[in-house]
């Protein structure tokens, strides 16, 4: 499977094109351009829309929406008098969780959010309402960290692309943003709308000239200058172009088309579509660092994350009949997560460690000095079974096809009852044969590991 970005979009955030396009010819042209962009997406085989919204600020790293069906009614903080936009979105939660793990693997602080009533930001609501009515394609939404700069934003996009490729997605990348974001500070009549100032207009046209030539990376590198010139400083920088450029391999030779450029209450609103086909001009040079991993130090709280528990971790080995997933913990030696032989899948021993940060649900059984710690065997057992389930799913199988299990416990007396209880709620209902052994230790500070054979 090879995933890719099939289209990239720059779209405006204000609610006018949804709520009242008819009140102003320019707003109507933005709405028409949005509709045209939607038609262009429908002509592709896209199976995912990825939204990076500058209107959802975050502080604890980046946040990724992972509620399968966020529903509520959106009201704009400024333009509440135009009306409300009810929304009911469909989120690709599997992608959201994988992106979150990929962020952590590349050194970023990241988390998913899934809470009933979460206020989806106006930009994401407007973009998905117009580009993806009826949730034709599942979406994923990411916040803008208020402190993040170019390196973090670039790595965020690369982590996203890791998952697009791993999952074989045909994805549409959407930056929801104004160009110049200076609005009129007074209410205006719709017919009075225009770009706030000549300078803003000139900069907007310059940005659109670059985008129409497909020069995404050049715009990315002008990001700080643009921010200084035409942005009200809501966030620390003009970030979405860094993100969009990195989603496109920092290229400068995309095929760009500006579908509309108008004012919305003074701000610069544009709908731009960028196709991955080279426009034939040859890639132009660029000179800023291409960052692969975020090594910046924002961990001032000194949280111990990504602890390897004193054991070297390996990438799983690959082979024709091997299956591996970044949704299961990294191996502690040179072996794959699973192998297929005939109709059977043989899994390597699986513990409760979490993919990405290597944390142990229920807590580790000892600290780095070897002192015993209190831990929750039921939480560990549940985490093991979730890891088994993810590996099976990666290999096209599932938990209900498990036929034989060997379980290893490091403390049979303490843990058998709890382990057995979780077993009864999960694999006990599937009915595989089972053997449970007491052993002296496992390589990482965990209490339980399962060795599984399943039907492919």
């Amino acid at each position, binding site marked *: 499977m090879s995933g890719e970005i099939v289209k990239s979009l720059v779209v405006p955030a204000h609610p006018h094109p949804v709520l009242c396009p008819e009140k102003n010819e320019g707003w109507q042209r933005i709405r028409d351009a949005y509709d045209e962009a939607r038609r262009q997406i429908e002509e592709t085989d896209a199976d995912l829309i990825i939204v990076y919204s500058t209107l959802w600020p*975050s*502080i604890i790293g980046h946040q990724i929406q992972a509620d399968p069906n966020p529903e509520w009614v959106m*009201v704009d903080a400024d333009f509440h008098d135009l009306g409300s936009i009810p929304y009911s979105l469909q989120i690709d939660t599997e992608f959201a969780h994988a992106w979150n793990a990929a962020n952590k693997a590349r050194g970023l602080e990241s988390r998913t959010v899934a*809470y*009933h009533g979460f206020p989806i930001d106006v930009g994401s609501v407007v973009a998905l309402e117009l580009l993806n009515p009826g949730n034709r394609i599942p979406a994923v939404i990411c916040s803008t960290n208020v402190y993040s700069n170019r390196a973090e934003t670039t790595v965020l996009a690369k982590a996203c692309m890791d998952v697009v490729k791993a999952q074989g997605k045909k994805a549409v990348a959407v930056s929801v943003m104004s160009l110049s974001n200076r609005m009129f*500070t*007074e209410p205006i009549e719709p017919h009075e709308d225009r770009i706030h100032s000549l300078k803003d207009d000139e900069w907007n046209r310059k940005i659109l000239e670059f985008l129409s030539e497909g020069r995404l990376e050049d715009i990315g590198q002008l990001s700080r200058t643009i921010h200084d010139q035409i942005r009200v400083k809501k966030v620390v920088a003009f970030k979405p172009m860094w993100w969009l450029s990195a989603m496109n391999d920092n290229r400068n030779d995309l095929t760009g088309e500006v579908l509309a450029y108008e004012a919305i209450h003074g701000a610069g609103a544009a709908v731009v579509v960028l196709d991955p086909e080279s426009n034939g001009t040859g890639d132009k040079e660029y000179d800023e660092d291409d960052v692969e991993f975020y090594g910046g130090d924002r961990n001032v*709280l000194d949280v111990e994350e990504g602890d390897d528990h004193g054991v070297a971790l390996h990438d799983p080995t690959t082979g024709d009949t091997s299956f591996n997933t970044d949704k299961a913990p990294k191996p502690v030696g040179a072996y794959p997560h699973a192998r297929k032989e005939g109709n059977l899948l043989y899994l390597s021993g699986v513990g409760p460690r979490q993919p990405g940060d290597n944390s142990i649900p229920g807590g580790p059984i000892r600290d780095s000095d070897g002192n015993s710690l209190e831990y929750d065997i039921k939480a560990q057992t549940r985490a093991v079974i979730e890891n088994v389930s993810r590996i099976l799913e990666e290999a096209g199988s599932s938990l209900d096809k498990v036929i034989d299990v060997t379980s290893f416990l490091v403390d049979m007396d303490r843990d058998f009852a709890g382990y057995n209880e979780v077993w009864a709620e999960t694999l006990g209902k599937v009915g595989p044969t089972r053997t449970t052994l007491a052993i002296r230790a496992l390589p990482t500070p965990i209490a339980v590991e399962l060795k599984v054979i399943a039907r492919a």
Partner: protein
Amino acid sequence: MAKGSIVAGCLAPHPPHLVYADNPPQNEPESEGGWEQLRWGYDRLRESLSKVDYDVIVILSPHWQTYVGTHFIGLPHCTSKSVDPIFPNLFRFDYDIEIDVDLARAIHDQAKSDGMSVKMMENPDFRVDYGTIVSCHMLRPEWDKPIVSISSNRGMHYYSPEVMQEMMLELGRATSKAIEASGKRCLLVASNSLSHRHFTTETNPPEDMSKEHITSHAMHLWDMRMIELMRAGKSQQILDEMPEFCEQAISEADGGAFSWILSAMGIPEEPAILHGYGTIIGTGNAVIEWPCHEWGDD
């Protein structure tokens, strides 16, 4: 009708961590406490305010951010669920709030006739911002007083800290005039932190107080300076230093609430009472009271 008055002013910071740590029935997440220094500060503020008679809470929160002027909630009753978009793990709160629409409109009208850009918010689907909810809950968990909710016009981001402050001084004067004409006794609330640089990681659990401290020494110095000025009644000096404070301490006073409240109280020379200080995910927060009702009428 007797003249209305501001019976007290408060600096009442609103990080959702405070409500989370308090575990009220309206909030869904549960905690093992945390940030006690600040929550005990709020206890002392509540105790002090329990001796004061007032009709309405007038609050300006930086988390209803508007660019097209200053807005006022114009619905008599607001009930819904508020989920903090930044800390949704800590704050998912069912609220039920009475709004004093008459007073809100009176301040709106006064500000308008004084030349400011203002707007009433009357969309029934609108959700009250979490800053307003947290400050009001910590001040008065009984929720038995109506409030006036004022948005934060982002003048500092749009123009500069100096322009923001001019606009907020003007809004403060309009607020004071409208309150006087209303005949109501009002509690004024500026809902903001002092220094406002956050950590970008969160401990597990978030209430692990062994990891809580100010983000830097410079932030601490700014916080202490502002607290000392308030305790010394040097409001004018605070206003003079506000642009530097906003820029150097990345202060949440950038939302205008601090300048607004000092202006509405007439830039008091009387000392403020410090009820508590503490940091929340690195930001500096003070619970402060200006006991205007004790100052006499001049």
